[in-house]
């Protein structure tokens, strides 16, 4: 079943064209990775899907919701689309647990007691059952990001968006977060991930979409893109990436 359908999306910021006709689709349970140089539009593409950024033209469908239609209720849409941010963006004044219960209580209207139970389970799943009452500033980067993932998962989204989830982490903390993401992928969650983590892409991605200048240059399974890219642009970028990460 097609869960996400992106059709010919254009987006510009001031005079700059950020997305210039991006199209791809994802089936339920797919894990796709967006790669490409900085400024290629990866994050913008992600943000169009939960409408943190508005498209100029083109259509996005999530299941039977017409995401880009002006009359679509964004708050309802966003409950179905979890987002994990590069800089975590945990609510600084709330504990790990409260970061998760806030949305459950205020958006889903779940009873506080029940919300706390769900949040505990969710933290347990990302290996943070011991950090329930820690504040964000008391957590390591890897722990923060796992709280970020738990916060998004708690809303029971149909699709999870990850915007460079490991780029702000110290190298030794990347592994914890990648493991959580791999588990999630194995559990059947539909995930769209902006990341240059080749290890994650190889182990979990169904397709990689290589973006450059706001266009999808090439799409395909990781082995195909990494070993036999068709486009020179893809080959150059990915071989550079491989060289960096094998160091």
């Amino acid at each position: 079943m097609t869960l996400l359908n992106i059709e010919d999306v254009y987006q510009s910021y001031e005079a700059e064209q950020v997305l210039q006709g991006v199209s791809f689709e994802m089936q339920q349970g797919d894990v796709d990775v967006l790669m490409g140089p900085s400024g290629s539009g990866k994050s913008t593409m992600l943000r169009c899907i939960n409408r943190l950024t508005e498209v100029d033209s083109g259509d996005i469908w999530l299941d039977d919701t017409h995401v880009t239609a002006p009359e679509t209720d964004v708050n309802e849409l966003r409950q179905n689309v979890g987002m994990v941010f590069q800089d975590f963006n945990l609510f600084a004044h709330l504990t790990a647990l409260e970061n998760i219960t806030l949305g459950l209580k205020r958006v889903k209207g779940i009873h506080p007691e029940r919300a706390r139970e769900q949040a505990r389970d969710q933290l347990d799943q990302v290996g943070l059952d011991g950090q329930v009452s820690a504040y964000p500033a008391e957590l390591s980067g890897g722990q923060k990001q796992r709280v970020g993932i738990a916060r998004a998962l708690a809303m029971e989204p149909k699709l999870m968006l990850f915007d460079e989830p490991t780029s702000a982490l110290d190298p030794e903390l990347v592994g914890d977060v990648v493991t959580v993401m791999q588990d999630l992928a194995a559990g059947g969650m539909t995930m769209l991930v902006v990341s240059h983590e080749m290890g994650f892409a190889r182990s979990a991605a169904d397709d990689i979409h290589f973006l450059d200048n706001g266009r999808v240059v090439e799409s395909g399974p990781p082995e195909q893109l990494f070993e036999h890219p068709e486009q020179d642009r893809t080959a150059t970028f990915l071989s550079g990436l491989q060289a960096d990460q094998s160091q």
Partner: protein
Amino acid sequence: MLQTGDWVFVLSNADTLLSGLVITVGLTLTSLSVGFLLGFPAGAVEVYGDGILQRAVKVMGGLLRGTPIVVTLLVLFFVVSVSESAFITATVGLGLRSAAYQSQMFRGALQSVDEGQLEAARAVGMGKLQAIRHVIVPQALRRSMPGFQNEFTIVLKDTSIAFAIGLAELLTQGYNLFTQSGHSTAVLEVFLVISAVYFVLTFVTNRGLDRLSDYYAIPSGENT
């Protein structure tokens, strides 16, 4: 020159000063409350509002901040006559002025909260107002504390300006003492006493607000 007789005179009229002190404390509380109730929303409008409302708030704030508080009180009392009560007039004047300053304090605090906080709240499906209320405001209020302590100190001492409209606050009551016939030599003693009272009030309240601020501080992990 300090004289024993003058000290005895001042201390024996402590009840007069005490009645002034009650007015001073009362006026500080009412003015700060008016300032908060109007200043906080005004600050929020400056950050999140648009159009006529935002422009109106900015213009009002500019006018209030740009007028000497004595002039504001005199105009409110003798020209506009907002109330026959000097206390109410002083509350309106000091309250509006404080609102103008508090709005800037809150504007700065709201703007200082990272944009990602609002985005994260919106991303879980919270509406803009919900996100501001549950995520931005609690953080902004904590960051406003130092500014608020400052504002408290200023308002407390500026209640003495209500002297100009004859309100029987601490300074006025002190004035009433040394202007009694035969006691003009007590002027220095009177001013020393009321200055000490202002100082003690300011000092004690600020320590109390420090405690409050520490209590609500967001743990950073550095002290644990």
